[in-house]
C-alpha cells in the first residue's frame, strides 16, 4: 500500500500561510467594523497585500531565537551577581544613569509593548499585524530583562525601589511618560510613524546606544548584555519602522502631507525626550563615550541625513525643527543638567557638579559655549557647595504644556534669554518652550489641554498621600510631595557628595580590593 506523506512546509511557506493564507474577509460583520481605527486618520491604503515583509519570521523561529538570547543573558546576569559586578563600575555616580533608565525608559518599553499589541490588532493588513505583534513581544521582553538586570543594583543602591510608581508621578518622568501616552492615544498609523519610525528608526541610536555604550565604558557588564540581547530586536524594529513609512507613502499620494506632519511632530517630541540622554552623556557618565553634540552629529546629521535623502523620492523633507536642534546642540546638556542640579532635592537620583577635569573635558567638547556661558555658573555652585551652601531651587518651575519640560530652553541664537511661546484656547493661556511644541498644541489643542503637568497637579493638591493634612500647622508641602513620590528624603535625592551610595560603594569596593572593614550607611 502506498503511503502519502505530505512534505512539511518550509519556513517561507509557513510564513506565507501565517501572513496571507490565514487571513480572511469577514462576512457577518463588515471589515470596517472589525478594523474600526483604520480610516479616521485620513491615511488611504488600497492594497494591504503590497506590504513587503522586511523579515520573514515564523512564530517557532521567533521563540527559538529569543529563548537562546534569554539563556545567554541570564547566564551573564547570574555571573555578574555572584561576582559583585556592581563594584566594578567606574564609580558610584554611574549608577545614577541606571536609575534614570529604569524610571524613565523601561516603562516606555512596556508602553511600546502595549502600543504594538494595539496596532497589531487594528491594521487590516495581516503582514504588518504579525510584525507588530512580534515587536510587541520584543518590547515586553525588553522591559523584563531591564528590570531583572537593574534589580541587582536595587539591592545595594537607593532610588530604584519604586520605579513604576515614580514613572507616573515625578516631574521629570512626566516627560517620557507623556511622550508615549501621546503616541499610544493616537491612531494606529500615527503610532507607527511616531514610535516605529521617528523613535525606533531615527532616534534609537541616540537613546539606547548611548546608554549601552556608556555601560560598556563604565564597566557595567550586565547592562551591556541586556543591550546586546535587545540590539538584534532593535534592528528588526528599525526595519519595520522604515518599511511602514515607505508602504504608507507608496499607497496614495494624499498620505504624504499627513506623514510629513507626523514626522515633523515626532522627531521634535523625540528630541525633547533625548534631553535626558544629552545630560546623561555629558554629565552623568564618569567615563564619557563621546559628547552629546558628537553623538547628534554622527547619528542624526550624518546617518539621519542619509535616511532623509533616501525618503526624498517620496517627497519627504527634513523636519523643520532640525534648525532649532542644531542651534541647541551646544547648550542642551549643560542647561538640562543645571535643571537637575536646581531640583536635585526632588529627583530620585543624585546630582553633582563636574570636577575640574570634567569641566575641562566639557570646554574641549564645547569650545564655543561651555566656558562662556556655563563654567562661571557651575564654578560658582561648586564654591558655594564647598562653603556648605549647596544650591537647591525650592520653588516649582514653569513647564511647557506639550513636552512638560521646565521652561529652561533659551532662544535659539541667544543663550542668555529663555524662549517663551503662548497660545490661547477656550479662554485659557498655554505656554511652550518652543515654536515646535506650540505648533503641536495648536494642531490638536483638545489633546494637550489634558496634560497632567506635575507642577499644576501639586498646586491642585493632587500630589499628597491620603493621610497628609494641609491644614496642619507644620504642613510642609514639598516634603509631602516627596513622600507621595515615594522618594526617601536624604537617601534617594540630594547631592551625590555625602550620599549613602557614595559611602557604601567606596566602603564595599575597599572591602573587595583591600583589607578594609566598616559599616554601611
Amino acid at each position, binding site marked *: 500500500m502506498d503511503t502519502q506523506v505530505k512534505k512539511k512546509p518550509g519556513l517561507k511557506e509557513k510564513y506565507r500561510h501565517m501572513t496571507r493564507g490565514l487571513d480572511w474577509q469577514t462576512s457577518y460583520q463588515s471589515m470596517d467594523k472589525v478594523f474600526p*481605527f483604520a480610516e479616521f486618520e485620513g491615511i488611504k491604503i488600497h492594497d494591504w497585500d503590497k506590504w513587503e515583509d522586511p523579515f520573514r519570521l515564523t512564530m517557532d523561529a521567533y521563540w527559538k531565537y529569543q529563548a537562546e538570547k534569554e539563556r545567554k543573558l541570564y547566564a551573564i546576569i547570574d555571573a555578574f551577581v555572584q561576582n559583585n559586578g556592581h563594584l566594578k563600575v567606574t564609580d558610584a555616580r554611574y549608577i545614577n544613569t541606571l536609575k534614570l533608565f529604569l524610571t524613565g525608559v523601561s516603562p516606555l518599553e512596556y508602553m511600546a509593548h502595549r502600543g504594538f499589541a494595539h496596532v497589531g490588532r487594528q491594521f487590516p493588513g495581516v503582514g504588518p499585524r504579525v510584525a507588530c505583534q512580534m515587536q510587541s513581544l520584543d518590547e515586553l521582553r525588553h522591559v523584563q530583562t531591564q528590570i531583572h538586570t537593574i534589580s541587582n543594583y536595587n539591592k545595594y543602591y537607593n532610588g530604584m525601589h519604586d520605579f513604576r510608581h515614580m514613572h507616573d508621578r515625578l516631574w521629570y518622568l512626566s516627560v517620557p511618560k507623556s511622550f508615549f501616552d501621546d503616541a499610544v492615544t493616537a491612531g494606529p498609523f500615527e503610532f507607527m510613524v511616531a514610535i516605529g519610525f521617528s523613535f525606533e528608526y531615527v532616534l534609537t541610536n541616540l537613546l539606547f546606544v548611548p546608554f549601552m555604550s556608556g555601560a560598556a565604558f563604565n564597566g557595567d557588564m550586565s547592562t551591556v548584555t541586556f543591550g546586546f540581547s535587545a540590539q538584534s530586536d532593535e534592528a528588526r524594529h528599525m526595519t519595520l519602522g522604515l518599511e511602514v513609512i515607505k508602504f504608507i507613502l507608496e499607497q496614495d499620494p494624499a498620505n504624504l502631507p499627513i506623514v510629513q506632519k507626523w514626522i515633523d511632530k515626532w522627531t521634535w517630541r523625540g528630541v525633547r525626550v533625548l534631553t535626558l540622554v544629552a545630560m546623561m552623556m555629558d554629565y552623568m557618565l564618569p567615563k564619557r563615550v563621546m559628547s552629546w553634540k558628537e553623538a547628534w552629529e554622527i547619528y542624526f546629521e550624518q546617518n539621519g541625513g542619509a535616511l532623509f535623502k533616501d525618503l526624498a523620492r517620496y517627497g519627504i523633507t527634513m523636519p523643520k525643527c532640525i534648525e532649532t536642534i542644531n542651534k541647541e546642540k551646544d547648550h542642551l546638556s549643560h542647561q538640562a543638567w543645571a535643571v537637575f542640579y536646581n531640583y536635585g532635592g526632588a529627583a530620585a537620583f543624585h546630582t553633582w557638579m563636574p570636577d575640574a577635569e570634567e569641566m575641562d573635558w566639557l570646554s574641549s567638547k564645547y569650545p564655543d559655549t561651555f566656558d562662556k556661558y556655563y563654567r562661571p555658573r557651575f564654578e560658582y555652585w561648586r564654591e558655594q557647595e564647598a562653603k556648605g551652601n549647596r544650591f537647591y531651587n525650592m520653588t516649582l518651575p*514653569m513647564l511647557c504644556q506639550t513636552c512638560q519640560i521646565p521652561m529652561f530652553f533659551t532662544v535659539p541664537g541667544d*543663550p542668555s534669554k529663555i524662549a517663551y511661546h503662548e497660545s490661547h484656547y477656550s479662554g485659557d493661556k498655554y505656554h511652550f518652550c518652543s515654536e515646535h511644541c506650540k505648533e503641536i498644541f495648536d494642531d490638536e489643542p483638545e489633546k494637550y489641554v489634558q496634560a497632567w503637568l506635575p507642577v499644576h497637579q501639586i498646586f491642585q493638591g493632587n500630589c499628597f498621600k491620603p493621610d497628609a493634612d494641609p491644614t496642619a500647622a507644620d504642613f510642609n508641602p514639598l516634603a509631602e510631595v516627596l513622600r507621595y513620590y515615594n522618594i526617601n528624603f536624604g537617601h534617594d535625592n540630594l547631592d551625590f557628595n555625602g550620599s549613602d551610595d557614595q559611602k557604601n560603594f567606596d566602603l564595599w569596593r575597599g572591602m573587595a580590593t583591600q583589607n578594609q572593614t566598616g559599616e554601611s550607611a
Partner: protein
Amino acid sequence: MSVHAFKPYPARVMDGQDKFHGNQVLYVGWVDHLMFCAPLAFALAPDFPFGDLIKNVLPGAYSYHPDFAQIDWSAVQWYKSGVPFTPRLEESLVQNGLGHKDLITFVSPGLTGIKGTCS
C-alpha cells in the same frame, strides 16, 4: 485645527482656575539670571497684593543669588508676556490685569548674573 479623533472628543481642561482652590497660577521670570534654570510658578490668591510678591514671595525664591540683594526695585522693568507693564504695588494681581497662568518677567538694570554671564 482640531484633534483627529475616532469619535466625539470633548476638551477636558486639566488646569482651569476652578481647580486651584481659589488661587491662580502666576509665572515669574528674572531676566539674565539663569542660575534659576526656568521661570518659577506660584499659586496665589487673585487679590494678592502685587507689592507683597516683591516683599514676601520673591525673596524666598531668589535670595540665594548674590544679585538679588542689589536689586533697586524702583528701577525694575516689568513685562507681561514680553509687553512692558507697570504694576501698581498696592493693588492686587487681578487689579493689575494679571489672570490665571499669566507670565511676568522682570529686568533688574545693571545686574547680569555671575561674572556677567546671565547666570
